[in-house]
């Protein structure tokens, strides 16, 4: 179990933390370069790649044609040649165009060729939400990649981990699917100025508690922490765990917490069927077998494509209040019909379109 340092320090946003990670690695390693649709455009991928082409040259941060399939292959080819490309996708949904290269080539090359090549690529995949992104601009498909041996998948939530994980991903000698969430970009937190890597395979316990373990993924960590605050007010003490890295997955931290609380609620920022939440449940119960019957629940996207209209979109996602209500039921017994009062998440309330 790793804890986030709480000592005061410089606070920056998640987006700036990502920028800092890339810039610092580009500074020390000439094999690192960034490319993808819009990375060097006036908006610089929400600021995360803003002036890299100015600082490091136009051939180290460049725009591409709309050719996600081939551009993924270009990243793989460059990686085999010894470079460390970072391929950026404005929406996770676009990775569906890259599946062949990522799953058939990137994930397989090291093994098929018995280690003769390595494929150190980072695939930055931004999950969209809000303002009617709709069915094709809001997907979070990390479980598809967790399914495939040869890939790594990380989904940092705090600015601290955003920087540290991106540095770790760039230095990793394997293909890393780097999962970001647009609604995390504005979140601020303490981020050391110096370079550091957050190792994969270590979960973080962001809040301790004895009554229930809540494991949350990506933006749902923020909502789970809010849910935990609601729960504190009614005397329920939730432990909130952020796996940070999904593959490899630190199941031990989750198992230990579940052993303590006897209750495990997993809130994924994705669909649940064959999702990260299913895998976590399976590993936990395989561990305990009949020695301990843990109460388990999963929450995630409603099992439907994402609708655009706001009232339905609100129902599509778990939120602090529905997470709290579910946890409350798990602790107090089913159907307590308790739902805390509270505003919608501020990052969602404050988000203005168009995109």
């Amino acid at each position, binding site marked *: 179990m790793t804890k986030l340092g709480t000592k005061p320090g410089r606070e920056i946003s998640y987006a700036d933390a990502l920028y800092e990670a890339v810039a610092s690695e580009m500074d020390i390693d000439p094999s690192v370069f960034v490319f993808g649709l*819009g990375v060097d*455009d006036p908006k610089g991928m929400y600021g995360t790649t803003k002036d890299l082409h100015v600082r490091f040259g136009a051939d180290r941060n460049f725009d591409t044609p*709309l050719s*996600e399939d081939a551009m993924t292959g270009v990243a793989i080819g460059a990686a085999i040649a010894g470079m460390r490309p970072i391929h950026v996708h404005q929406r996770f949904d676009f990775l569906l165009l890259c599946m062949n290269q990522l799953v058939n080539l990137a994930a397989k090359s090291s093994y098929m060729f018995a280690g003769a090549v390595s494929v150190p690529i980072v695939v930055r995949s931004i999950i969209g939400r809000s303002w009617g992104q709709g069915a*094709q601009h809001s997907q979070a498909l990390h479980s598809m990649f967790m399914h495939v041996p040869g890939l790594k998948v990380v989904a940092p939530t705090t600015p601290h981990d955003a920087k540290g994980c991106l540095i770790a991903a760039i230095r990793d000698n394997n293909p890393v699917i780097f999962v970001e969430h647009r609604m995390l970009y504005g979140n601020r937190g303490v981020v050391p100025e110096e370079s550091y890597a957050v190792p994969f395979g270590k979960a973080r316990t962001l809040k301790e508690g004895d009554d229930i373990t809540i494991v949350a993924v990506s933006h749902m960590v923020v909502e789970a922490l809010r849910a935990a605050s609601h729960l504190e007010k009614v005397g329920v003490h939730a432990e909130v765990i952020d796996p940070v890295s999904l593959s490899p997955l630190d199941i031990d931290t989750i198992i230990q917490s579940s052993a303590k609380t006897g209750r495990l609620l997993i809130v994924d920022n994705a669909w649940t069927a064959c999702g990260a939440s299913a895998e976590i449940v399976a590993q936990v119960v395989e561990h305990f077998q009949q020695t301990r019957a843990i109460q388990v629940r999963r929450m995630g996207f409603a099992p439907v494509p994402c*609708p655009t209209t*706001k009232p339905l979109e609100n129902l599509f996602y778990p939120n602090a209040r529905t997470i709290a209500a579910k946890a409350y039921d798990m602790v107090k017994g089913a159907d307590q019909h308790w739902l805390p009062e509270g505003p919608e998440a501020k990052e969602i309330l404050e988000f203005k*379109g168009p995109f």
Partner: protein
Amino acid sequence: MTKGVRGDNAVLLRRLYTSLYRIRRVEEEIVRIYPTDKIKSPSHMSLGQESVSVGVCEALRKTDIVFATYRSHAAYLAKGGDLKRMTAELYGKADGAARGKAGSMHLIDMSTGMMGTSAIVGTSLPLAVGYALAERMRGKDTVVVVFFGDGAQEEGVFHESMNFAALKKLPVLFVLENNTYAIHTPLGARVPAANFRERAATYKMPTQLIEDGDTLALLEATEAAAARMRAGGGPEFFEVMTMRWLEHVGPGDDLHLNYRTKAELDAWKAKDQVKLIGAMLDDAARGQIQREVEEEVQAALAFAEASPYPADHELYEHVYHD
């Protein structure tokens, strides 16, 4: 502008102007309303590009089929899509074209042959080809039009779709709306040469260039192409030069981003097709159209405002068909 058009010029021009002006005015209203947050839907404005949809669709039958992009308003309206259902859709209301589930990026009106649009660039190209294949298998003489941007031609699926349509000689009209930008990226950063017609010709299909988004030229060219396609001539390819006036997505200007120049944009505004076609009408005719459109647009907005949001249980509907 262009040479003479069909029989009753006046009627035709009134139709064209109505269609053009209607799209223009709706979008101007969307731009006005957007900051109020009532429209929570990423909207890619057709403003400046209306003529591409209007010129092509005017030459089509109601039973002909249109596939378009997330920049969908012009095609939807030009093909006869219901205006009220469009505004309600942008408002996320239950009377919307898709009960609020679609938003601006996924407009649809099956009753007029306007197929649902996709927000994944290039993805409608093969759907259009498949639709045409189906119609041909059933012996219909439907023409299928697919609008796509200059960015979409970079996707591999463009190549695959062109090849297959040509191989099977399917009645698909590929209409490349060349506004020379993909978001903020100019063509020069994406292709070694902007010779799209040359490449299309290698698929053995006739190609045409339409300059300045010329509505009448496009109408004539489409009529001729549609006739050839109905007779089994196989797919054709149009490249239409045009320009969007606003930012890639949303209601704002974007000259401050400096990826294109004011001079470039002004040159396009000077040859605004809505104005040019309007100028071919006398003041009375033009004024009447403008008043009628204004009424229709305001009624549509009022309709959208008044429409209820979909009920909660609708979240779970429409995932599967029985």
